[in-house]
């Protein structure tokens, strides 16, 4: 199972003040806060960790159908190399692996319960509009994106009718659709 979370950095700056007293304490543990304050770009670290927690939560939510708001129960560690940011999120006895894209405009994190699946995930970025489903379908030759009656997205391979697990995240100006190349993974 895979999950993802996208943050429009401009929008995050205007709609959230993470420097507000008490804010970080509600969502980040001590180690995470230390890493935030030791970073040359603290606000990038705030939103990177937040997107990691959200991406992992989305897997748990989709598997368990339980909703809860416990950001502190997700502990993040990240490892950056020159081009890519990888991470690990621990939740209770479970571990999720993450990969993030960070640029001037957005942070996008994908998460998977299996490390090797991260390489199997494809990402499409679109403008965040109400007609993104038809936008996607008019641009994609191979796939058809649909939502079931519960709003769960599903990606159909038009060449062989195979169904792929998909996940959508949007914020501000941007929208990401991810899917696993493996069938129903």
């Amino acid at each position, binding site marked *: 199972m895979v999950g993802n979370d996208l943050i429009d950095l401009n929008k*995050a700056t205007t709609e*959230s003040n993470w420097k507000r007293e008490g804010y970080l304490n*509600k969502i980040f543990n001590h180690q995470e806060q230390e890493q935030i304050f030791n970073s040359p770009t603290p606000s990038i670290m705030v939103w990177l960790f937040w997107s990691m927690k*959200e991406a992992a939560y989305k897997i748990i939510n989709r598997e368990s159908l339980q*909703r*809860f708001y*416990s950001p*502190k129960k997700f502990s993040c560690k990240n490892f950056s190399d020159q081009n890519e940011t990888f991470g690990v999120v621990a939740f209770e006895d479970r571990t999720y692996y993450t990969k993030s894209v960070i640029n001037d405009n957005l942070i996008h994190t994908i998460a998977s319960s299996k490390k090797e699946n991260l390489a199997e995930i494809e990402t499409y970025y679109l403008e965040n509009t109400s007609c993104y489903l038809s936008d996607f379908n008019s641009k994609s030759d191979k796939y058809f994106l649909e939502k079931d009656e519960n709003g769960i997205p599903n990606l159909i391979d038009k060449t062989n009718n195979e169904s792929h697990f998909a996940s959508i995240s949007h914020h501000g100006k941007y929208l990401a659709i991810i899917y696993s190349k493996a069938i129903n993974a």
Partner: protein
Amino acid sequence: MPALSLKNMSMNKLNLIADLKVIINPYTENKDALESISETTDFLTDLKINSANLVDIVLDIEEKYGIVIDDASMAKMVNVKAALEIIAHKQAENGGQ
């Protein structure tokens, strides 16, 4: 008397929902859903509140009512009903008001 106390309780609940409406206003663009806020309103699916702003709502509620919302209570804070229960419960712990 039971009828009266029931009436007081629902008045109190209506006042709390009116307070919540003011607290939530800066964090939702979905003003129609906010206008018709009720006990069954969901913060995320109905009001489309960004999950990073739920923290602000928790902090605003703490400040407004002089309570501390611990992690276990915050875990349930996904709708108006849960928020009302948490406020009532924490106020009772503080000796009631």
